[in-house]
């Protein structure tokens, strides 16, 4: 019989302290809309919120029609010590995430931020409030965190106004939309957004989710949450097709687009496909001057969470090389359930330089900080 030491396992697993990371997808939430967001909303919109709630182009008041895999789509261990909602408490986020993973740059991507609301004026007011809240509750208190300018993106004009309002404000490092728009994103109704982003020198991040109102597949509504989740990759492919084939990157040559949480391994085959289709349909696309793969390579970055997990890492290495190591950005999606741990993802074999770029340097040079 042996003598043993018994103790509680620590709540947070020890992390590799040497690895410094940029986390390009962190989701903050208010503990209470009334307490934290209302101060930045006019009386009219406070009343509207109380009376009608946040009506989206989807059926339920309380949440999506594909129930998530976990409550709030959150890691079970991401609730604060007093039961605070995941991602709602800065002090807990520091202890639970920023410190142990040595996050040197954390990009805040607020969801439920008023984006895609049926009422565009309410969307604009709510997005503006969320942006004010990011400064007040997060970026002014924690220098490692940077905000995203949430856009009421279904209205290009109001979105451009919000970008102009935040231009030059170092609390923000990107503008922010969701993938499932109501029309393909290269459509001209969204063009004011691209102009404003280019003028303000803000990359434009597009995150999975959103409710555009059309079925989430070209063949109608699927049955399962699994399909909804996997489907973000297909929505992202349609988005990229639209952006390239509408000539957006020809018109705004400095625009930088970041695809967030929608996969990346699809990008090479899409670029080959678009090149073929472009070459065959030049007559229809005189405004697209170069092969689509060139625009994709120059203008598009991808966050890698949820990380692809093929059986063989070598396969993923091919994908990394086809896309370019400098276009891939690490993200954890904290505090959500499909979190990627930087020390555990099956990263392909890489040089030190590639690794450093992937975890930190690519984000720094993209955002210019």
């Amino acid at each position, binding site marked *: *019989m042996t003598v043993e030491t018994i103790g509680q*396992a620590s709540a947070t697993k020890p992390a590799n302290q040497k690895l410094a990371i940029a986390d390009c997808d962190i989701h903050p939430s208010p503990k209470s809309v009334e307490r934290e967001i209302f101060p930045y909303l006019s009386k009219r919109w406070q009343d509207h919120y109380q009376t009608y709630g946040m009506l989206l182009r989807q059926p339920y008041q309380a949440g999506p029609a594909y129930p998530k895999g976990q409550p709030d789509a959150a890691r079970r*261990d991401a609730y604060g010590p007093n039961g605070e909602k995941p991602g709602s408490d800065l002090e807990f986020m520091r202890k639970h995430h920023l410190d142990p993973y040595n996050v040197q740059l954390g990009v805040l991507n607020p969801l439920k931020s008023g984006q895609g609301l049926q009422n565009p004026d309410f969307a604009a007011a709510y997005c503006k409030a969320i942006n004010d809240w990011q400064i007040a509750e997060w970026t002014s208190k924690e220098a490692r965190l940077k905000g995203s300018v949430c856009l009421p993106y279904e209205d290009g004009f109001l979105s451009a106004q919000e970008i102009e309002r935040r231009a030059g404000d170092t609390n923000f490092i990107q503008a922010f939309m969701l993938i499932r728009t109501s029309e393909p994103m290269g459509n001209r109704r969204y063009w004011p957004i691209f102009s404003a982003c280019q003028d303000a020198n803000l990359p434009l991040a597009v995150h999975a989710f959103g409710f555009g109102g059309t079925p989430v597949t070209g063949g109608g509504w699927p049955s399962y949450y699994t399909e909804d989740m996997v489907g973000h990759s297909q929505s992202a492919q349609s988005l990229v097709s639209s952006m390239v084939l509408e000539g957006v990157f020809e018109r705004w040559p400095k625009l930088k687009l970041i695809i967030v949480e929608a996969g990346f391994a699809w990008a090479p085959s899409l670029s080959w496909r678009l090149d073929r289709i472009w070459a065959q349909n030049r007559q229809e696309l005189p405004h697209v001057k170069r092969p689509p793969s060139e625009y994709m390579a120059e203008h598009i970055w991808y966050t890698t969470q949820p990380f692809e997990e093929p059986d063989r890492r070598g396969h993923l290495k091919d994908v990394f090389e086809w896309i370019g190591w400098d276009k891939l950005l690490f993200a954890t999606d904290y505090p959500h359930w499909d979190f990627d741990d930087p020390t555990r993802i099956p990263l392909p074999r890489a040089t030190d330089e590639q690794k450093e770029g992937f975890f930190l340097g690519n984000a720094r040079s993209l955002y210019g900080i």
Partner: protein
Amino acid sequence: MAKHIAAKVEDIPPGTRVSVEVAGRKVAIFNVDGEYFGLRDACPHMGGLLSEGVVIGLVEANKPGCYNYSRGGEIVRCPWHGWEFDLRTGKSRFDPKRWKTHSYDIEVGDGKEMHAETVDVSTEGDYVIVKF
């Protein structure tokens, strides 16, 4: 195989679980209706603490659209990515041969001739003992 005192019986009532460190190993101990199960407290995928997962039943199907529910409380879902593990074997539900976490034998005993630094071992009462 050595025996190690992991906890007092009253610390793990039925339906609960604890995470303990025993001889440098993190072990999640679950009490399912008085029966104890021990798993290495780390998901083989990315290391999520299984002791923080929710336990559910085993859902199986002999055809699409059918959800046969059995063994309530004997499957733990990783708190991160939701991978399911069988508390009795440590094997994952989706690919039991390739993905599993270590499973430990657990017994209840009076802990005589064993002692532990952070559990106050007395001569009365029972202890949950991990074997490895």
